[in-house]
């Protein structure tokens, strides 16, 4: 790994995210900050547009999880219409949502994180990508490509297009599932199932290589948040909103997700475009909480499908303290992939899924609508207001990655404190700090803009605000 160390101050900002490490005079780390550097203003650009354009427009927030935005946006529009989506329509939406969770988790696990997991955090940068894994770990690379394809293929079969399908619409979905496509989905299940089970089999034993990382990768207690079924099980499409304590027990009674505003506030810091949602009752920044696969699996009763429940039970052998490490997002992601495949099979196998009544039609009946669903990275909230012509007058979005903003910052601070002492930035820190952020699989296209492996640039700043060192890796 080659790196350049400069002590020049940064004269321009490059890349989509950067990290500043604030030092105390005695050479200890005070705080580390993740700056998100892109901003697009969706909450304002939709103003004046007809509400029925919103799902397609809002999907363009993110090409990694467009289906999440389709779902949350269409649900907000359902609320504007004040209609109940026909049962089959809702279940078809569920399938697409699960297919997307499978493909997006696979992208995060295989394409972005597997190189670190398989080769170690200190491997050469040239070997740390999915194309290079094709030759060094062909089976893992193939499984990753196959699992991502599994999800994307189902999205295409349902919606006619892999990215930005326009099929989820206010009131339901625009076309039913054909028998031919149903059979095609069923035929792809076994290959996907084998791929994820093969992956769990190598991943779980490999965890013992990462004891140090597990200890300091954002390993601290926080509240957890996400949707659950009425009986408290895993849920990604509908259900109740739960706030849970670190051990997973509910912090308060589960509430209707439309009431999220009563419990979540949003704070702004002037050094990043990503806002900081927090749990209002605990104030800012104490109201830190986490969302996404780790939060979901730490707080639900069960998954509700046999194989995923067996895996969940094994995962739960970890102590509550260990389960607070964001490193375990990876494991949680694989269990959700397994769950998604099982659940898709179950829903698709029901003959009613071919029912052709999949959309309710209505004019708008309410001036305000809220839609909440679980995106791969956590809970997604869309809130719209319209005028008497159905044109949007205001919108607010809270995006999955935003919820994790406080925890991501606290996480890199923890890792920086562990790996840094004195005004030297030790080499292994660079990739590890990135890797802490990567565990959250932050979708910054969602929050503000995209990033996979960001062009990281770290600055060390002394107590007077002077830049003492800058490091970037090439």
């Amino acid at each position, binding site marked *: 790994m080659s790196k350049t160390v400069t002590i020049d101050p940064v004269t*321009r900002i490059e890349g989509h995210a950067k990290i500043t490490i604030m030092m105390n005079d005695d050479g200890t780390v005070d705080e580390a900050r993740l700056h998100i*550097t892109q901003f697009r203003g969706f909450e304002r650009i939709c103003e004046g547009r007809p509400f029925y354009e919103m799902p397609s427009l809002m999907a363009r927030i993110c090409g990694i999880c467009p289906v999440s935005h389709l779902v949350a946006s269409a649900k907000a529009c359902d609320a504007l219409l004040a209609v109940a989506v026909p049962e089959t329509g809702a279940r078809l939406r569920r399938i697409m949502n699960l297919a997307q969770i499978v493909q997006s988790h696979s992208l995060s696990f295989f394409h972005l994180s597997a190189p670190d997991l398989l080769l170690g955090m200190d491997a050469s*940068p040239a070997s740390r990508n999915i194309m290079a894994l094709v030759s060094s770990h062909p089976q893992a*690379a193939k499984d990753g*490509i196959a699992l991502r394809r599994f999800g994307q293929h189902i999205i295409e079969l349902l919606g006619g297009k*892999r990215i*930005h399908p326009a099929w989820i619409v206010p009131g339901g979905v625009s076309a039913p599932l054909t028998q031919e496509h149903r059979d095609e989905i069923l035929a792809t299940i076994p290959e996907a199932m084998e791929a994820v089970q093969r992956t769990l089999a190598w991943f779980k034993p490999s965890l013992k290589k990462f004891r140090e990382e597990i200890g300091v990768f954002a390993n601290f207690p926080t509240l957890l948040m996400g949707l659950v079924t009425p009986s408290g099980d895993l849920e990604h499409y509908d259900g109740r909103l739960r706030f849970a304590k670190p051990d997973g027990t509910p912090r308060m009674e589960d509430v209707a997700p439309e009431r999220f505003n009563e419990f979540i506030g949003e*704070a*702004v810091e002037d050094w990043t475009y990503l806002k900081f949602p927090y749990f209002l009752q605990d104030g800012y920044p104490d109201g830190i909480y986490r969302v996404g696969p780790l939060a979901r699996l730490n707080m639900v009763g069960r998954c509700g499908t046999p194989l995923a429940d067996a895996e969940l039970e094994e995962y739960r052998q970890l102590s509550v303290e260990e389960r607070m490490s964001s490193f375990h997002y990876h494991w949680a992601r694989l269990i959700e992939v397994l769950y998604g495949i099982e659940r898709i099979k179950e829903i698709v196998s029901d003959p009613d899924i071919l029912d052709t009544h999949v959309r309710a039609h209505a004019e708008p009946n309410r001036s305000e609508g809220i839609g909440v669903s679980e995106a791969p990275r956590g809970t997604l909230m869309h809130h719209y207001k319209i005028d008497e012509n159905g044109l949007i007058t205001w919108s607010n979005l809270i995006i999955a990655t935003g919820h994790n903003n406080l925890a991501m910052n606290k996480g890199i601070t923890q890792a920086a404190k562990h790996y840094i002492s004195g005004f030297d930035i030790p080499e292994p820190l660079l990739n590890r700090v990135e890797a802490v952020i990567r565990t959250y699989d932050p979708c910054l296209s969602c929050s503000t803009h*995209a990033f996979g492996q960001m062009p990281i640039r770290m600055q060390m700043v002394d107590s007077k605000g002077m830049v003492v060192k800058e490091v970037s890796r090439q």
Partner: protein
Amino acid sequence: MSKAKVATIWLDGCSGCHMSFLDLDERLIELSEKMDLVYSPLVDFKEFPEDVDVTLVEGSVSNEGDLHKILQVRERSRILVSLGDCAVTGNVPGMRNAIGVEPLFTRAYNQNVTLHPQKPHGAVPALLDTVKPVHQVVPVDVIVAGCPPSASTIYYVVSELLAGRLPELETHTRFGA
């Protein structure tokens, strides 16, 4: 034969064009025999290399960081491809041009806020007054419309360019969809 050097960058887009590239699935393995991905959000190199054969650009030019980057990338790329409607027309990011920058900030950081309403600045790149498609900022060699262009289109474009031909795009692309 030495492998071609290919890069991909994202400016102001949704990453959907990159995801469409990944939708090549197994064809990625085939392409990896003909080309090296020398810079991309998907690989771990942090500096844009000096002599790239083909660069695919997703997204429009929206902030100072994008502007700086596209100028450098143009200089270092033999063939520059505008990939997807955001790069080609401004598309969704360009919707803000009719509104201006300030109202966007007011909505996001003053109105929809519980605590510390304020505009982020300084440590983050400033937005340009207007969003521009790539060809309004630097010369572009190939334009590929679509939101996003399909994986097959991307495969065709890359394969033709690697074979030293300019792709014929009339029948392969359309805006939107």
